[in-house]
């Protein structure tokens, strides 16, 4: 199979959101300022000082998973991986010049091998797509914006654009997972993984979830406005939207065409 490059899995919304961020006046200057002033190094120490680095010695299976995924996505060397204690069911790729992966302990504790390897695809896909830069800047503005030499109003513009991108990236990750695993049921199961205990998820019909997603996406009027407004400041999209997006991508035949091209 050919290398899975960004052109195959980068969601148009993700790409558009990144372009929108880069067009904000002052973005390049901000990036330059951040790069030159060691914020990344400080952040890396803060994020990893309490975290265990996963290596071939202490977590060979996980590192091998990343190596396999990396190979499929054209990476010769995978980023450093750190484990953090978290109830969240998502990992992070952070950093501009030296991105690293932060795995949530809940992800490792909850998934079997097949689920985990497919789940981890998002980390490599994010790394390849350069998401570390935007994730890092978003976090920097959210938590330390007051220290940056940028007016608050301008920071709000950046943050709004960053939040919009942060939601779009999940559609990219879902596509990357699908291309790597070729397992529709598994990828759909990973969307919203952990929202309910395993025994409940096991009895939850995929068709019922897709129907729920359909009803959700068809909301109109005030409900639709509330649906949009309530995630403006969030960094994750609705699971229902992700389910609907993946369903449409596969049903439309686009996925099948891409898969054929990659063979």
């Amino acid at each position, binding site marked *: 199979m050919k290398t899975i490059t960004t052109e195959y899995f980068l969601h148009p919304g993700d790409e558009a959101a990144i372009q929108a961020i880069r067009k904000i006046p002052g973005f390049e200057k901000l990036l330059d300022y951040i790069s030159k002033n060691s914020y990344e190094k400080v952040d890396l120490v803060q994020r990893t000082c309490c975290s265990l680095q996963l290596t071939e010695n202490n977590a060979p299976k996980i590192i091998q998973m990343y190596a396999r995924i990396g190979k499929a996505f054209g990476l010769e060397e995978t980023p450093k991986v750190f484990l953090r204690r978290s109830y969240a069911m998502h990992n992070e790729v952070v950093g501009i010049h030296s991105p690293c992966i932060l795995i949530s302990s809940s992800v490792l504790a909850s998934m079997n091998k097949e689920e985990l390897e497919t789940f981890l695809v998002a980390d490599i896909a994010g790394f390849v797509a350069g998401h570390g830069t935007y994730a890092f800047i978003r976090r920097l503005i959210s938590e330390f914006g007051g220290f940056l030499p940028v007016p608050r109003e301008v920071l709000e513009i950046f943050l709004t654009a960053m939040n919009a991108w942060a939601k779009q990236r999940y559609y990219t990750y879902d596509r990357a997972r699908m291309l790597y695993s070729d397992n529709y049921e598994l990828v759909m199961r990973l969307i919203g993984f952990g929202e309910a*205990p395993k025994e409940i998820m096991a009895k*939850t019909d995929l068709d019922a979830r897709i129907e*729920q997603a359909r*009803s*959700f996406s068809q909301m109109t009027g005030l409900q639709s406005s509330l649906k949009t407004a309530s995630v403006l400041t969030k960094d994750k999209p609705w*699971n229902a*939207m992700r389910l609907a997006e993946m369903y449409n991508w596969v049903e439309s035949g686009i996925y099948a065409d891409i898969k054929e091209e990659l063979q």
Partner: protein
Amino acid sequence: MGTGIQLTLSNAPKVYAAFEHAKEVLDFDVPVDLYCYRAYDPAFQAYGTDRYFIGIPDSTIRMFTPTQWQFLFGQCITALKGKMTEMLSLANAIEYSTHFLPLETGKVLVAPLGQWKRKAQLTLDRGGLLACQDYDEVMRYLNWVSGVPARDLDSIDVYNRVEEIIQSTKEDKGIADTVGHVKNTVFSARNMSSRERFLELYNWYESGTYAKIVREHT
């Protein structure tokens, strides 16, 4: 609906049975959708005005017993029956908006709305106890909320705990504690303290009012 997993009789029979039981006891025959979502919160949340939902953090399904689920469902049904969800949403929205919008009116409303929210919790606790009718289980739940590890809940004497709380309210702690208590309970605390909840439920139970209500409706 956008994030959670809908719970039904087929995928969550025990949880759904607890919900149906609470509905029956509190005589609430209106359709409500249940959604489970990932969160480490200790309580369910009721939403809706013309269409009702209950949000259930996944941690509560793992940590609590079916009787305690009935208590939590009872709280939600009490909120829905009393049309409290609109007020709770408004209180939360005003509180949130004062962080970043110059709404001076909102800031003036925050304190009284916060007070109402905290007092409303006491009503919800009563409704929850009536739904499950197991005082010990409810007290164990409140012990968990106040920090007792789950594995130690069965070894704690709930009545002793209430005695300790009553005793501590009689001790004179000085002006600093009084000011701190007033500040936390009147101005800034978003939730009623578990101590207040313990005391209130204990007094209601011990006064015989709870037993009278149960007798009258059995």
